[in-house]
């Protein structure tokens, strides 16, 4: 028993941690991942985990004063638009080096392949000088990988957005005193998806949206189920039988059909999605609430409330339902993972949340397109989803054992 409790506690901790992570997604985007969820990097489609990218909008700075000298080619102590535009062109010629001159497609531009690239590299060579190949070849293995090229072009990738960040006096040019270094590269910690979007950022946002959908849809179904079951249990008689038979009918339709038909009728959109999921999952809860309210109706709680002269609906809503909800809580907890899974299936059918916001379901669908290139794209959302679902299952089980 103690072992199970420890397991429950671990599951709870994981669940709370995950939800906190999801809530902190915008903070992580700003301070940790440096990518936004929709930002596409065409040069980095399905990059593997740990790939470094060109600087993003809010980079950290390396503080190296030598960079300023190299960028400030006319030596006037100020960086103007013309100098930055030159740098940008040089960087662009460098970044396509691998794509255009890697003749044998082994992911490296070797010394032998490099001469063919020399004319196209004229803008970059002007910056890097005669020994540009050696300057870029950081690990001295005689071949340039994309990582090395990206690293070598870091200084040249200063964009107007960065100038605006550095330019403290607002005169549009960078003085030496304003220089804080070349932008540090941001890392795709988990790699990118098939559109070159940062996976970690998307998983965090997906976690947030999925948790939201799960909780909100579960709340909708819990309210609906409590009301439906409560009314049935309270009124009793033929009304109860009719209402419960209605549930039996709905039980006989596979829920995917119901959701698809509902989304078709209501139209797509987050609210409609929540409604559609909420309208499907409430039935088991309604059954439990009905039994509980029917039981409470025979107790002194009901009798004394009615003897005080309270109207029937008030007795039901204020007195019977709150007491009925205690044994129902585990069922309500299990509604959350069910709703999260429903949303994942809907996303798979193209009926779920729409871009730009990814849910974990959307991420799974995206990830399945490129498992071969970046397995993390499928594994990470699946793992996060599994922990989320297992946590809620465990929570529900723990509460029903109590």
């Amino acid at each position, binding site marked *: 028993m103690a*072992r199970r409790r420890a397991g429950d506690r671990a599951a709870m901790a994981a669940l709370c941690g995950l939800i906190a992570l999801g809530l902190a997604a915008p903070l992580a985007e700003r301070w940790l991942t440096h990518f936004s969820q929709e930002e596409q990097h065409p040069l980095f489609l399905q990059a593997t985990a740990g790939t470094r990218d060109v600087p993003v909008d809010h980079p950290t700075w390396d503080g190296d004063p030598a960079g300023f000298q190299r960028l400030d080619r006319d030596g006037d102590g100020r960086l103007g638009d013309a100098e930055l535009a030159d740098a940008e062109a040089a960087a662009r010629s460098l970044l396509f080096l691998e794509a255009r001159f890697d003749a044998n497609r082994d992911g490296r531009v070797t010394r032998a392949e490099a001469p063919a690239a020399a004319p196209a590299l004229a803008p970059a060579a002007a910056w890097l000088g005669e020994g540009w190949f050696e300057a870029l070849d950081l690990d001295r293995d005689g071949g340039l990988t994309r990582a090395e090229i990206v690293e070598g072009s870091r200084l040249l990738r200063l964009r107007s957005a960065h100038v605006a960040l550095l330019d403290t006096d607002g005169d549009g040019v960078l003085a030496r005193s304003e220089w804080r270094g070349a932008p540090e590269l941001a890392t795709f910690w988990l790699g990118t998806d098939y559109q070159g979007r940062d996976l970690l950022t998307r998983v965090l946002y997906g976690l947030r949206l999925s948790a939201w959908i799960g909780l909100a849809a579960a709340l909708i179904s819990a309210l609906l189920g409590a009301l439906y079951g409560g009314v049935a249990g309270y009124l009793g008689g033929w009304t109860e039988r009719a209402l419960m038979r209605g549930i*039996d009918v709905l039980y*006989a339709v596979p829920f995917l059909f119901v959701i698809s*038909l509902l989304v*078709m009728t209501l139209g797509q959109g987050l609210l409609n999605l929540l409604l559609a999921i909420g309208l499907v999952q409430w039935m088991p809860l309604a059954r439990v609430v009905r039994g509980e309210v029917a039981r409470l109706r025979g107790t002194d709680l009901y009798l004394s409330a009615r003897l005080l002269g309270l109207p029937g609906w008030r007795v039901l809503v204020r007195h019977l339902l709150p007491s009925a909800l205690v044994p129902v809580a585990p069922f309500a907890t299990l509604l959350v993972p069910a709703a999260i899974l429903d949303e994942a299936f809907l996303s798979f059918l193209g009926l779920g949340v729409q871009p730009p916001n990814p849910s974990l379901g959307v991420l*799974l669908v995206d990830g399945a397109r490129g498992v071969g290139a970046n397995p993390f794209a499928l594994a990470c959302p699946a793992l996060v989803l599994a*922990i989320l679902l297992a946590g809620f299952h465990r929570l529900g089980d723990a509460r029903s054992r109590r």
Partner: protein
Amino acid sequence: MGTFRALALHATSRVLEAALTLLAIFTLSFLVMRFAPGSPFDRERPLAPEVRAGLEARYGLDRPLLSQYLSALAGFATLDPGPSLVHPERGSVTNLLGDSLARSAELGAWGFLVAVAFGLALALATTLSARPWQRETLRTVSQIGLVVPVIALGPFLVEVFAVRLGWLPPGGFDGALARVLPAAVLGLVYGAVFYRLFQGGLDDTLRRPWPLLLTALGVRRRRLVARHVLPASLTPFVSFLGPALSGLLTGSFVVERVFNIPGLSVHFVDATHERDYPVILAIVVLYAALLVGLNLCADLLATALDPRLRHGETTSR
């Protein structure tokens, strides 16, 4: 004799109830579909009004709703829901769905077998294992299917067994090998559900006095569980068979799409996008009929197995 009459009476009332349920589902889906925006004749380029009116007249969509409803009902009652509205060239809906239904049903059957085998094996292993950490590990393994959705499990297994190892085909439904992965995925997911049922049943039965008595009489635990406890603890499994099979059917829907199996799901998704009313209605009613039928069988089976259910407190409580 009395027993038989009670059983027959019970069966008749259940069959009637099932028929009414199907009628209600038919009516509901008919109404929901007709009030949904869009029409089967919406194309990329709008049709000329007179062409559209002609099409609607041809398929009777211009008649009053009640008359449309009644004729659709008559069509379904005689198992001929009429032609597809969007692809009339493919023949009647019955022809359209026949082959796919066979494939879906076969997939469901394989999935069910794998799920029962998986769930039962793990449940027995859990019950027979002596140490708590063994039980906890088995319990965790059994729950994988519950927390990893089919849409992740499917592509993952395809990547490993079809792309990397090349042992199995990545999709389709040709040959025995192509059935392995879809059946395994379905079995893993619903095996987790079945595991909980088997395991719960075994635990409950073992807590009764008579297994203790048998142990005291010297019956070995392995024999006790296999010969005595297991048969007595199948009731929760049988009574949950209906809902479980309903889950299996819905699950096979997703599996079909993951593995590109030309089953019913292809028709359903296409038909919902194209608003092909007879096809949507046919698939919904078909699945509902399967569910209601299976529920009915499970219910009658449980009644036949457990005489207590026939008297007093019957089902659905």
